[in-house]
């Protein structure tokens, strides 16, 4: 805890605070003004132009009866759970890099992991969209070439999924039953550069004496991970978890690009953010979209609070 200073001392060189003004101004204009505008417009019937009408809480009442919005939380719930599982490869990769003996190879692997970050995320999304293409996509070519498709068709016959057929290319993004699996498959092998770096930072802060002591006790590799490494990077895991939950709840770019504004066939890929976007830009109900955004904000805030309050890390 930094020591408190007196008001007189703090204001002695008061003019230096003026240097903060440009930053505060920019944050105010670009971060807070839109946020306040969202709150303001959520009480209006507003279609984006200059015409608007104050309607009180009507937008919020409509949210309560909005089935698509509530259903979208089921999809987002599945995606949050899937993303939690998708954290594992990053942790695994971080541990592998950390355990490398050679510092030079550690460095090389870090670079390799970080390198894909320079590819714009939009490009990555487009590449994945191309992977899923039914006639020209890599995924279907791979499944055909390896014979996995035949296996999937057999499984389909056994379980009556109704999504894989022998003579028809798999429409990953055009079949309701395959939408969620496609959204989960996306990003395979799910090694996120930021995640790996965060976990690596945590792993590298573990003192060598801990490992030495463990070695004297004769622990094996798996025990080393469960008893030392994983508990000691829980702070990083928690940060990742918070970022992941917030990011998943907020995001809709992936669904928009892969499935369009309507969330794909049967609206199986509809998430709250996409519904908000679709209400604003397809239906022209900007006021209602603001109310949805506000609701989402409160929801995320509550989740973050609960996470900070109850998900504790005992070292």
């Amino acid at each position, binding site marked *: 805890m930094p020591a408190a200073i007196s008001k007189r001392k703090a204001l002695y060189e008061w*003019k230096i605070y003026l240097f903060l003004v440009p930053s505060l101004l920019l944050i105010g204009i670009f971060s807070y003004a839109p946020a306040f505008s969202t709150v303001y417009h959520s009480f*209006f019937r507003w279609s984006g132009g*200059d015409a*608007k*009408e104050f309607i009180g809480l009507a937008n919020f009442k409509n949210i309560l009866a909005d089935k698509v919005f509530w259903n979208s939380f089921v999809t987002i719930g599945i995606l949050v759970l899937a993303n939690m599982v998708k954290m594992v490869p990053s942790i695994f990769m971080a541990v592998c890099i950390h355990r490398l003996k050679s510092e030079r190879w550690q460095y090389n692997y870090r670079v390799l992991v970080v390198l894909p970050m320079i590819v714009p995320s939009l490009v990555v999304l487009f590449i994945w969209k191309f992977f899923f293409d039914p006639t020209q996509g890599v995924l279907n070519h791979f499944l055909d070439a390896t014979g996995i498709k035949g296996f999937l068709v057999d499984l389909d016959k056994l379980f009556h999924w109704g999504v894989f057929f022998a003579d028809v290319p798999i429409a990953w993004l055009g079949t309701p039953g395959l939408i969620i699996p496609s959204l989960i498959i996306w990003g395979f092998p799910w090694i996120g550069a930021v995640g790996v770096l965060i976990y690596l930072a945590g792993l590298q802060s573990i003192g060598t004496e801990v490992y030495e002591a463990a070695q004297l006790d004769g622990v094996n590799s798996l025990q080393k991970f469960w008893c030392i490494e994983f508990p000691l990077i829980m702070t990083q895991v928690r940060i990742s978890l918070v970022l992941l939950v917030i990011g998943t709840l907020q995001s809709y770019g992936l669904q928009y690009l892969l499935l369009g504004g309507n969330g794909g066939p049967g609206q199986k890929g509809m998430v709250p953010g996409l519904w908000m976007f679709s209400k604003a830009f397809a239906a022209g109900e900007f006021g209602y979209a603001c109310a949805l955004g506000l609701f989402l904000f409160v929801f995320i805030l509550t989740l973050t609070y609960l996470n900070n309050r109850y998900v504790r890390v005992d070292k």
Partner: protein
Amino acid sequence: MFPLHLPTRHLFACVCAAVFAHGLNLCAASETGATPSEEIDQAWEKGATFRFNEANVHFGKLAGKPGIAERERLLGEAITLLNRQPRAQSNITEAGAIFEKLVRENDSDTIAVFAQYFIGRIEQVFLDPPNYEAARRVYRDLLARFPGDVVAERAASHLVLLDLYEDVSKEERLKRLASLETLGNSLNTSMGKREFHINAGQACLDLDISDEKALEHFLLADKEGITRWQTEMAAWVIIAELARTENKREVAIEYYKRIIAKYPSNIRTFTMKKRLESLTGTTVNGSPAPGPAVVSGI
């Protein structure tokens, strides 16, 4: 010490001034050198081009300015206030009060016609829920007191819509139509008559009142001259088609010919040509059988 140097302060001041001036430029009257009459006209022109907030501010700024007619200014301020954004019930109430005041002060000049007309429009269009009975009363009074005034006669076309599109029986609609037609006969201005007949004709079609009556009203509307091309085209097609089904062959042929001549590339024109061909038994120039125009090898 980190003093703010003079040039920095100047720069800051300039930025503030530019932002402020830009804001003023957007929302306030900036015209200079205009006569009072020109200046108030500029405010009306803003109202005519959907720049309601700017127009309202402009009218407000002209208050007390020498040479500005206060009743005209107040009228403009109230009319633009109705659409000042964000729209608020308080604005509607305030505008209504100004209209009432204008009518109280003088109930027989042009301003009073506009003001009373808008009192009716507030009841019909701006209130939520609307008060159609009150609107009807205002409109009938307006028509009775200002015969031959374009604005007052707009009330007649609104009355057609209010009376005929209400959820009533077909007999009641026919009775109402007859009563409205008497009102229509008393109209004097070309604009008033035309809009009255278009609304009555469309209501006859929409509500399945009578094709014959619809044709009669559209013909009367066309006689007054429809100047908006979309309305004219639609009216001519309706006239031609109704005349055909009502066995008024000559009228139908005349209007089919008019449509083909004036709107040769409209999506409805080919159908009009086919109808004309079937009525006259001749082939109309430029109407080959429809089919895909196929061109290969570009």
